[in-house]
């Protein structure tokens, strides 16, 4: 990747609140057009970092460049604000205004002509299917409808980077899927960079890059596949026939396993390794299941500081 393609560059960022250091010198970069997942438990420094990137909070030290603009001074921050859209955890639109009034009014804060705002509204309305709620008061909308409106507001000025702070928290599965598909479509069709924080690991699994922050430090980063390789594993669950002396069989071959409720669990280096084992044991097995390593495993193992060593 060339340097020109990096839209967010964070170098040695630090932020303290009094004696408490929330962010302890983190560095990372986000490439143009990618879906970047920024993960961490509550209190890890995630929100502080996002607040700083969105120009809501000041940094103590470190350098940040967003879409080429230096973060920190008035001019730089104002240029950055032109380029970013933010979907906050909380609803930030006005309950007493309609969806259309809300989005149009917010669009007017950017240097756009009336025609541009109207065009952009058509664009966001199509992406987020706003026609049916256009004239409804925001306060009368369901959680999913509100979220659609929030995202529409965040992209009304067609930003380069869209920050999504836990955008699907509290939504029902169907709405979550709809919102998520709209976000993915937006990324793919407009090449908008998406900076995402989420507690849903299946959302992080489709990211192009993932960074995990813990107690103010970055503790892992890479593509979901790279992280799965390092922090997760596929496993094979086996249940043997009563006649088979399974423990002896594993001991002879020096294969490690865990045993619980009649199920033997073996860690696999690759999924295909399951095939070899199953082939050797095919007459002794009563049932089996191959479990794929997930981003949930990745997250839990990173947070619990377990690096996986496969057999």
């Amino acid at each position, binding site marked *: 990747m060339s340097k020109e393609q990096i839209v967010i560059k964070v170098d040695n960022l630090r932020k303290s609140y009094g004696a408490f250091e929330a962010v302890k010198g983190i560095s990372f970069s986000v490439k143009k057009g990618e879906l970047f997942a920024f993960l961490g438990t509550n209190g890890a420094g995630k929100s502080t970092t996002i607040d700083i990137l*969105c*120009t*809501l909070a*000041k940094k103590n030290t470190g350098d940040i460049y967003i879409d080429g603009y230096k973060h920190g001074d008035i001019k730089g921050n*104002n*240029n950055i*604000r*032109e380029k*970013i859209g*933010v979907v*906050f955890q*909380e*609803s*930030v*639109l*006005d309950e*007493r*205004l309609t969806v259309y*009034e809300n989005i149009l*009014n*917010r669009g*007017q*804060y*950017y*240097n756009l002509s009336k025609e541009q705002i109207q065009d952009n509204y058509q664009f966001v309305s199509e992406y987020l299917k706003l026609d049916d709620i256009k004239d409804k008061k925001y306060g009368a909308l369901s959680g999913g409808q509100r979220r659609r409106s929030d995202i529409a*507001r965040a992209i009304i000025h067609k930003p380069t980077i869209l920050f999504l702070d836990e955008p699907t928290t509290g939504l029902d599965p169907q709405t979550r899927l709809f919102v998520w598909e709209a976000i993915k479509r937006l990324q793919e069709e407009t090449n908008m960079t998406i900076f995402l924080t989420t507690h849903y690991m299946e959302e992080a699994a489709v990211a192009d890059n993932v960074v995990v922050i813990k107690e103010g430090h970055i503790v892992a980063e890479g593509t979901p596949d790279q992280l799965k390789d390092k922090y997760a594993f596929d496993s094979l669950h086996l249940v043997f026939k009563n006649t088979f002396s399974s423990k002896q069989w594993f001991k002879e071959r020096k294969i490690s396993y865990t045993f619980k409720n009649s199920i033997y669990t073996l860690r696999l280096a690759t999924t295909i390794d399951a095939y070899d084992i199953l082939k050797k044991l095919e007459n002794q097995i009563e049932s089996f299941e191959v479990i794929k390593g997930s981003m949930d495993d990745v997250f839990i193992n990173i947070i619990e500081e377990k690096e996986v060593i496969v057999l």
Partner: protein
Amino acid sequence: MNSLFYLISRNNKIYRRDRTLLLLSLLSVFIVILLYAVFLQQTQIDAIKQIVGVTNESKVMVNEWMVAGLLSITAVTTTLGAFGIMVKDKESKKTHDFLTAPLSRATIQLSYVINSFIIGLFFSLLAFVGCELFLILAGGKVLSIMGMLKVIGIIVLSVALSSSINLFLVLFIHTQNAFSTLSTVVGTAIGFLCGVYVPIGGVPNFVQNIIMYFPISHTAVLLREAFMTDSIQKVFKQASPDQILEYEKHYGIVYELNNRLISTSYSIWIIIITMIVFTTVSIMIFKRQNK
């Protein structure tokens, strides 16, 4: 500049659609009207009776006194009510949406202040028209063009002063509960601090001093003077200058501080200086809060 206009338009729309905020803003105005109807008017007429005979002109004069007080209160409570939007935005974190848009901190703050000024001015002028109608229907005369301009000028000053003081107050308010408490306290206190619920002459000396040092009460003094000068001359034409002065001091038409009568220009200066001080301090606090 356009952004400021759109922010003001948003604030204004929300205020107009919030009936509770609207009602709360006008609550103390209703209280004044009620107190006046129940006993304030009669008390004052009884007092006048002891100096001169009671005529229709004296009733008109008393009505004018009430109208002046009511207008000074309206400016305070309606501008404060409009700042409710600012508090709500802070509490619900809507402000974050503005702070991440290319809007300067000053523009965001100014939008609340200007909206408060517009709302205060609208309601005060509406109240002025209503009060004028009431005065005419109750037997009074229409104010002269000069008189009207004078009253409108004082209303503008009064609304600007109230906006600046209320802005300062709401900078320390972060929840709607706290704002409701503030509105109740201000709504109640303002009637006393402007000498509307009880005439200034009817309270102890130290309270009188507090009222006279309270900048907003000077708008009430200016308004009383603007409304009542002609009526006082008519009602008290048989009375001695001392009796007239005594009445004027008792009902807060003139202030006497440290044995000196306060002039109109002195009151205007107090209003302007207070306005500048509160606005400057508020800007400094807002900048500090939103670094």
